[in-house]
């Protein structure tokens, strides 16, 4: 049965299903219980599952992650919510030095199925530290898996897959997409967890992105089609590992690729894709791999977010440059 749901509701239902299916699943974070989270993604779950399964924590990100590690050692499967992207850094050591490395340090004897949900990205007009895209830090860290759903359907299924897996997962939720509705089929099938996916086929240029950027890429592809350019759009879905199969296959067909993201471009996920495509699809390329990204500045005050964040126009500018070769 197909339902029209927002991503926030779809993730909420995914969390509800995970809590119902496995008594070891716990949710923990700031304001996630009675309030239902600042984005209401956990709305109603404390009432349904109780304060010992949906745990309001003290306001301390390092401790949220650090105690989730201990809970995982005890056999639980904690799902932590970090309230906003820019508030993840107090937990950075526990994520990158502890959580990411503990299975390695234990030589496989212990598993750490901890999911860290992070609402991220701009387009919501919020104050400083509330619109950032820190995913590259975590994609750079061995031992973590990093994913970002772009649709309600993926929100519903990928959160459950993240919880069911045996590795730590950084689950980046594009907060500007929380309130857009889309088709969700709760009977499945779920997509493969960490596969990238062609979401629009085309022949002239490949557009790659993740999270909220996928909608911008699709919008750009629509406009390009009106101008006679056929763009193929790929939703990365997973940032670590990156599934290059569909990307390379697409580039072999189109010969041109533009990678877009909200995060600053220098040393980013887009950089990694550009390097890999150059290494592995060199003879297919008709133009340099081009990147469209946030600028290498702090996220600006909200009234300037439209300047900072890539949109369809900036994507199309890069498409034009690629086609000029």
């Amino acid at each position, binding site marked *: 049965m197909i339902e029209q749901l927002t991503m926030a509701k779809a993730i909420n239902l995914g969390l509800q299903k995970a809590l119902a299916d496995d*008594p*070891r699943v*716990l949710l923990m974070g700031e304001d996630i219980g009675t309030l239902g989270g600042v984005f209401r993604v956990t709305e109603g779950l404390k009432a349904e599952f*109780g304060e*010992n*399964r949906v745990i309001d*924590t*003290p306001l*301390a990100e*390092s*401790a949220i*992650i*650090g*105690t*989730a*590690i*201990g*809970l*995982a*050692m*005890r*056999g*639980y499967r904690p799902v932590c919510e970090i309230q906003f992207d820019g508030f993840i850094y*107090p937990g950075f*050591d*526990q994520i990158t*030095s*502890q959580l990411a*490395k503990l*299975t*390695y*340090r*234990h*030589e*496989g*004897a*212990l*598993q*750490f199925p901890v999911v860290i949900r992070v609402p991220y990205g701009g387009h919501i007009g919020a104050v400083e530290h509330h619109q950032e895209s820190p995913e590259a830090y975590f994609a750079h860290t*061995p*031992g973590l*898996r990093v994913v970002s759903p772009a649709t309600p359907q993926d929100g519903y299924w990928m959160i459950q897959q993240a919880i069911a*897996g*045996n*590795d730590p997962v950084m689950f980046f939720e594009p907060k500007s997409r929380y309130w857009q509705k889309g088709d969700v089929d709760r009977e499945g099938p779920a997509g493969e967890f960490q596969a990238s996916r062609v979401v629009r086929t085309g022949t002239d240029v490949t557009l790659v992105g993740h999270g909220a950027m996928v909608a911008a890429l699709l919008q750009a592809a629509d406009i390009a089609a009106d101008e006679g350019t056929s763009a193929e759009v790929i939703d990365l879905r997973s940032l*670590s*590992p990156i*599934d290059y199969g569909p990307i390379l296959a697409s580039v072999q067909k189109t010969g041109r690729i533009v990678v877009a993201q909200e995060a600053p471009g220098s040393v980013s996920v887009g950089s990694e894709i550009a390097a890999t495509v150059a290494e592995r699809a060199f003879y297919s390329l008709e133009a340099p791999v081009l990147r469209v990204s946030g600028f290498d500045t702090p996220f600006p005050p909200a009234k300037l977010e439209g300047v900072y964040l890539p949109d369809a126009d900036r994507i199309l500018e890069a498409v034009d440059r690629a086609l000029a070769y």
Partner: protein
Amino acid sequence: MSSDVALQLLTPDGTLVRNDRTSEYLPLIEALDETRLGDFYRQMAVIRRFDIEAGNLQRQGQLALWIPSIGQEAAQVGSGYAAMPQDHIFPAYREHVVGRIRGLDPMRIIEMLRGLSHGGWVPSETGNFHLYTLVIGSQSLHATGYAMGIALDRLTGTASGAVDSGKDPAVLVYFGDGASSQGDVSEAYTFAASYQTPQVFFLQNNQWAISVPVERQSRTPLYLRGEGFGIPSVQIDGNDVLASYAATSAALTAARTGHGPRLIEALTYRMGAHTSSDDPTKYRENEQVEYWAARDPIARYETYLRSLGVGDDFFAEVATEADDLAADVRARTLTLQDPPSTKVFAHVYSDPHPLIEAQAAWLAAYEQSLDESDDAELDEQAVGA
């Protein structure tokens, strides 16, 4: 350094302290049989000998690093024996003897500090003695989360078997005076107090965080920090193995039976360097070292045991056991082999991961190509000859 408020059951000259305060704790000591009283000495003496041997192995190039625990044996042995078998222990990185008490082969520590592993022991096989953690204080949060899990087992009905608060596990976490300045430790106190976790924070105040004295870490005695978080806290003479045992036993019992977390600050002294990489003569005075040498934890406890009638035979037997362990560790260290290169890729993830698999396959092919070119060179040399 000395403190009037620190709980002491055994004076530096080896006399039992009987007063109103100790009367609460002495029954815990009186309940110990002769064997366990002997074990306290045995573990302290054996680990000191092991420690000296490991330090020598480091000086001889067999280990990349050694982390000595000399001077802190009483704090560690007393608290280590206070833990019940079902308890979980989260060490920092200097609690070699606690690991040994729980069944950890000291060679696992040797292997780690030789550079063969990052620890790698399995807590379920080492008496629930968890891995060392080198990022100062970060284990305090893992311990607190583990203790939250124990509490949740009861609250969510996920506990296996019948709930019996007297037999439930509790958590014992070790850290030091330096770690007490880390935000993670304060956050651990906060969470432990909020969720009333069954855990004991065991702070070994050995007076020095590498070269920085405890006075720079805190303007207030460290046990008082616990009180500020709502955690009942006690300061003890950490060079008194009986005080360490009794205070930790009492605290674990309180934690185990639903009374929430406890903090113990054990005043002790690191007689040696922080690790084999530093030189304590650069930052501290001989006078201070001598002060603490006169309060040696093993000497005072030997005096006490002798006052109970324990004779030379026992001490000679322990000395032999210590020498045997040292010789065994040396012999086994000299036979250690480097791990295979495949260990680089092992267990980065629990589930399959294509990037790791691709890099492992690349390295295998690369190493094979080197072998083949070596062979080719050898063949050429053979032809040339």
